[in-house]
């Protein structure tokens, strides 16, 4: 999809009619729009979202006030946005009109048409817009750069997870899961309401109570996770401040080293404990089975001595003698004779080759068990020694870190001492949250186990009647379907997570001068690390860059999925990338690299920038990609007084972006040639 034109009429700051034509050239694919804050950048971004879906971004203030104030004062109560675009070689126009009827409300009218040989052919609006850019994906194509902090914030996992799920097109499958879960609740109520099912009512009540407790526990866990992440970020920020103060620098560096060593020890403790758990699962039996192994070997040996296993006679050998009717001593064995009967009698105890093999294998296995036991005990001792050594190492490090903290707390510089006290309080909070997290997690697991037991009891009790059996079968069908959908979504999410992480790292390699490593963990938490393994502080320019790279990766992911015909997911799309204030808090050095990179992110890119963001260097970096350029001018009724006319120089032309003593307060657009 490519945007061709947008026409605004009395829409927000834009009094009267305004037309924007966008760059569609494959080389010069950027439309650049200059505007100072508050003049109308965000309005333009929101105009498309509003026309397509009737929605606006979170930061769009006074959402209900659509009609321009000046127009309203003149009795003109209609505002509209027309979006002309091209999709799959066909042109379409979507128009949303708002007629204000009262202070707070009005009527909305949406029309959408396909343009065929100059004629308009009506098409269903929602179907069209959702097939061009599915609703849940739109906010990432029309992105407010200042909101990028949502992705780099300490508690980013919710927003990041949602963004990936939205771009993956999970909403339809998710709605199916929610609807099936809702149906299950209804079916279980129906079962409980069947006559004579008092036990079921009781069980259902208990299950509901436990489910509520589980949900509450999960909410608390999410809250604690956020609290821990917030503490971690604040600790990082304090550490950064301490590194910057000469008096604390050395101690803080020592603490950094010790903390890094502690993390290393913790990782080793984790592996050693895992090795111990593995030992219990695989080798513990060898130790416990010592007596069994000894008794088994004794039994085999005893039976061997008695000649029972293996027997001294081989079955095949005896059969051959009988068949040849000749004994090994060359005497004849006439069938039915006494000698023949004696030899035939041997068959009762004669052993088969298979039995012999089994005895040999059993002896060998029991011997291995005995031998393995010695090795198992040795490896257990090694693991236990390692765990003890790591525990000691950890205790030493904890003590050293504590002492560094005390030294910093007693530092003669008041600021350092205060930061350290604040830091210690955060560490305490973090540890407290960690303990509470563990306790709640245990409680939740126990509720879940109890729910499972009660559920099984519910099913056993309910299957007494034909009607309840049928209802249970229906509920189980819904449950199985939920599980299938969840499994499929989980698989796709995992693939998406990996693909997006790979793409972000690729983008960062190009745009970030220093080498960073980006991680997106399976809980959708994303973090940026220096090559040393230390995390990049949140709120830094680098994290803003990470957020931009993340958005770019989402757009790229959607593009790759544009022709995907997966039945569970909504296909992706190819759409313009509209970025409001993309350079946000980026340092000058990143702005230029980012400006060079932005045009490659989508076939069509629309950038909305203020003069502080779109400086000369940024404009120069974008220059070869700009296909259309606009400037938004603010006209004001009042006198200029001491106010600046906010001059802006673009391509050698100077523009006053704020004008005074004008007939109306409004924003107008001027195309730069």
């Amino acid at each position, binding site marked *: 999809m490519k945007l061709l034109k947008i026409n605004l009429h009395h829409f927000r700051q834009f009094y009267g009619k305004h037309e924007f034509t966008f760059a569609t050239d494959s080389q010069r694919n950027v439309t650049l729009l200059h505007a100072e804050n508050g003049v109308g950048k965000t309005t333009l971004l929101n105009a498309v979202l509003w026309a397509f879906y009737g929605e606006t971004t979170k930061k769009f203030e006074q959402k209900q006030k659509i009609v321009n104030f000046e127009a309203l004062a003149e009795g003109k109560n209609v505002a509209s946005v027309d979006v002309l675009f091209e999709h799959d070689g066909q042109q379409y126009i979507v128009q949303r009109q708002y007629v204000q009827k009262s202070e707070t409300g009005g009527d909305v009218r949406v029309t959408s048409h396909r343009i065929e040989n100059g004629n308009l052919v009506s098409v*269903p609006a*929602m*179907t069209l817009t*959702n*097939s061009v850019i599915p*609703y849940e994906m739109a906010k990432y194509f029309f992105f407010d750069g200042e909101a990028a902090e949502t992705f780099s914030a300490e508690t980013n996992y919710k927003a990041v997870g949602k963004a990936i799920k939205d771009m993956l097109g999970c*909403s*339809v*499958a998710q*709605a*199916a899961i929610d*609807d*099936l879960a*809702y*149906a299950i609740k*209804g079916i279980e109520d129906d079962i409980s309401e069947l006559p004579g099912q008092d036990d079921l009512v009781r069980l259902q009540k208990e299950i509901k109570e436990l489910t509520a407790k589980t949900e509450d526990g999960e909410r608390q866990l999410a809250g604690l996770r956020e609290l821990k992440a917030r503490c971690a970020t604040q600790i990082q920020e304090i550490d950064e401040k301490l590194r910057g103060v000469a008096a604390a620098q050395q101690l803080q560096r020592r603490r950094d080293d010790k903390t890094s060593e502690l993390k290393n020890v913790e990782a080793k403790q984790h592996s050693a404990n895992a090795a111990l758990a593995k030992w219990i699962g695989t080798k513990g039996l060898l130790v416990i089975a010592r007596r069994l192994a000894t008794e088994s070997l004794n039994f085999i040996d005893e039976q061997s001595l008695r000649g029972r296993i293996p027997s001294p006679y081989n079955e095949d050998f005896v059969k051959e003698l009988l068949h040849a009717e000749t004994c090994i001593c060359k005497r004849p064995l006439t069938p039915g004779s006494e000698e023949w009967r004696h030899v035939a009698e041997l068959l009762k105890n004669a052993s088969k080759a298979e039995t012999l093999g089994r005895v040999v294998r059993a002896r060998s296995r029991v011997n291995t068990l005995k031998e393995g036991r010695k090795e198992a005990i040795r490896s257990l001792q090694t693991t236990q020694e390692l765990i003890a050594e790591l525990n000691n190492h950890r205790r030493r490090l904890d003590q050293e870190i504590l002492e560094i903290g005390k030294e910093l707390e007693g530092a003669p510089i008041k600021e350092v001492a205060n930061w350290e006290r604040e830091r210690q309080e955060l560490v305490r909070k973090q540890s407290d949250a960690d303990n509470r997290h563990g306790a709640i997690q245990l409680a939740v697991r126990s509720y879940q186990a109890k729910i499972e037991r009660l559920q099984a009891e519910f099913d056993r009790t309910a299957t007494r009647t034909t009607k309840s059996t*049928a209802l249970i*079968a*229906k509920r189980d*069908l*819904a449950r*199985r*379907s939920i599980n*299938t*959908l969840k499994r499929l979504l989980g698989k796709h999410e995992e693939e998406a997570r990996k693909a997006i992480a790979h793409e972000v790292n690729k983008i960062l390699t190009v745009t970030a001068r220093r080498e960073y490593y980006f991680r997106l963990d399976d809980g959708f938490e994303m973090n940026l690390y220096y090559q040393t393994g230390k995390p990049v502080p949140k709120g830094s320019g680098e994290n803003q860059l990470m957020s931009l790279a993340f958005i770019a990766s989402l757009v790229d992911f959607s593009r790759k999925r544009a022709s995907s015909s997966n*039945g*569970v997911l*909504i296909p992706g799309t190819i759409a313009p990338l509209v970025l409001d204030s993309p350079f946000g808090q980026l340092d000058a050095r990143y702005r230029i690299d980012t400006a060079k990179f932005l045009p490659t992110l989508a076939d069509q890119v629309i950038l909305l920038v203020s003069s502080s963001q779109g400086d000369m260097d940024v404009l120069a970096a974008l220059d070869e990609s700009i296909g259309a350029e606009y400037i938004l001018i603010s006209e004001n009724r009042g006198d200029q007084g001491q106010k600046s006319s906010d001059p802006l120089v673009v391509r050698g032309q100077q523009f006053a972006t704020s004008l005074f003593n004008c007939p109306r307060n409004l924003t107008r657009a001027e195309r730069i040639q």
Partner: protein
Amino acid sequence: MASKHLPPDPQAVEEEFLNDLLQLERLYAHELLGAKAERRSKVLELLNKTSARLHRETSQN
């Protein structure tokens, strides 16, 4: 569609159910936004139909 003479296996019926369910959800997601109660009632209808079909086929087998 199930043949009158050869009932499809339950797995195929469940797969068909999932496809129909997702198709229904897609329709409501794109064209009938907001009609949640109606959508849920359609889902229940589909669930009833499939469950009855599975039950019938299990009895026949």
